[in-house]
């Protein structure tokens, strides 16, 4: 007993700082938001969530009927569907190619160049991509440039292009780490057996990369479906635009609209979160080890 106590006393000073911030500003806020979502807390009417009325699932009933919640979830899903395949498979192709470069120096240079965009602040990329599409590729003219990115159906594709550019190198590194664990003899013996390159890729490379693929799919699904910065920056709070997703609607409700109904905003946030968790569990099920 004494032993475990002294042991714990030795350990906790190391762990407590991390747990303090993690619980205080990450775990507690979402739990607290769940509680707020059961109240009618409006920031301009009530002093605190405690003084607001506890209304059980009324917010959820309202939210499910709310067309803005529905379209917000739908738009977020559309963007995720456009964004995800490119963000998963382009880096995989790059990693397989870089892994086959035998010259160490050349492989290092490729890695470095691919990684450069990852060092930049994401939300700032909007300016340059606007510039490229307007002035370099002439897809839009100067008169409609400030609004076009938020207003058309090409919005999501443009944002996806930006994110692909940004994340290509970083995700390639993940795959390369996975590829480096595959013993080279596996390839050689497969070639000796006369297996085609496609079969080798499918049965050895792809099979071995599956755990990394799962992690990346889940993580990127999360970032894409809960994206908010780029939407607000490109589309603002214009409801007619596809960028008015559930995350933007939540922000708008909590900090701008009417009485700032934060109970309802928390509900929107939690509906999005529940939807995401559902998909994540489904992904884990799809990718489960079938052997």
């Amino acid at each position: 007993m004494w032993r475990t106590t002294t042991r714990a006393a030795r350990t906790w000073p190391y762990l407590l700082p991390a747990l303090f911030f993690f619980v205080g500003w990450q775990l507690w806020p979402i739990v607290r938001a769940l509680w707020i979502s059961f109240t009618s807390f409006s920031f301009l009417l009530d002093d605190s969530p405690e003084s607001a009325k506890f209304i059980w699932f009324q917010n959820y009933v309202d939210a499910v009927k709310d067309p803005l919640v529905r379209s917000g979830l739908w738009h977020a899903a559309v963007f995720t569907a456009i964004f995800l395949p490119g963000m998963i498979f382009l880096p995989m192709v790059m990693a397989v190619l870089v892994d086959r470069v035998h010259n160490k120096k050349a492989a290092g240079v490729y890695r470095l160049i691919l990684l450069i965009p990852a060092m930049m602040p994401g939300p700032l990329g909007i300016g340059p991509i606007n510039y490229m599409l307007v002035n370099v590729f002439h897809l839009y003219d100067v008169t409609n440039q400030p609004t076009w990115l938020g207003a058309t159906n090409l919005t999501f594709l443009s944002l996806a292009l930006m994110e692909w550019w940004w994340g290509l190198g970083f995700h390639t590194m993940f795959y390369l780490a996975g590829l480096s664990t595959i013993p080279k003899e596996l390839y050689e013996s497969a070639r000796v057996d006369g297996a085609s390159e496609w079969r080798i890729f499918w049965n050895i490379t792809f099979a071995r990369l599956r755990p990394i693929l799962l992690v990346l799919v889940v993580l990127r699904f999360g970032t894409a479906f809960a994206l908010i910065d780029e939407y607000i920056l490109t589309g603002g709070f214009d409801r007619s635009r596809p960028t008015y997703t559930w995350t933007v609607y939540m922000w708008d409700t909590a900090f701008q609209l009417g009485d700032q109904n934060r109970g309802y905003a928390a509900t929107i946030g939690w509906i999005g979160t529940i939807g995401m968790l559902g998909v994540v569990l489904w992904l884990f099920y799809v990718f489960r080890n079938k052997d």
Partner: protein
Amino acid sequence: MARQRRSTPQRRLPWGSIAKHGILISTCGVILFPLAWVLLLSVKSLPDAYTNRIWPHHFDFGSYHRALTAIDTLPQNFENSIVVTVATMVITTTIAVLAGYALVHLPTPGKRLILGIFVASLFVPSRVTGLISIWEIQDRLGLINNTWGLILPYQTLALAVSVFIMRGVFETIPKELPESARVDGASSFMILLVRNGVIVVVITNFIAAWGEWLLANTLTNDQEKRTLTVVLASANAGFGQWLWPTMAAMYVIAILPGLLAFAFAQRWYLRGLQEGALKG
């Protein structure tokens, strides 16, 4: 005869290799092209900027001056960003190293549970869903519209990933080593072993804090309290009144710290990534 046999496969053009390097080089081109374009744009004179010439007729560095003077709070915003980012990098890295060490080399009760919660948090959009409550906490602490106050929620931006990475790095160190290091009092030796992993964590936190927009935009109101990313991104997105070269100059100013840090630390960063930071 023997010589001929050896030279036959060499005479065939290595199409596979050409295609491989071709794809890689063109991808690198796609990566570098926008950057080069923005960099060149920032030193173009106005007439050059509105024609399609890639290389400017004559160089004009006035855009940098205009960018820095057009928004009069910009030096303050730059300072705010540096303060918040450096504090986040130092604090998060320190606590992540401590936690990673405890999770591997100390007899921590509930090790798996703690690690599990950290990993599970990666799959939850806590920054978005928890925003309302983060605002509430900051409000209770009197830290709304306070630049230094941002440091608290910023700790969590990359905390879970950082702990996960440091745990992976400490796993690569044999269990006996910390014991003997403690006997010799050589804890600095341990830091040397995990150096590359620490660099990865530092850079990860730098990117997260320097480019953070949502929290900074929500928790601060006055322009002089805000970070560079918030002010520039707002200026960038609604840039109707901005001239292209000025905008490009602002962009270069904002990304330069990241690129310099990366150029400086890239060797350890790449090694850290390979060493196990990504394998955990």
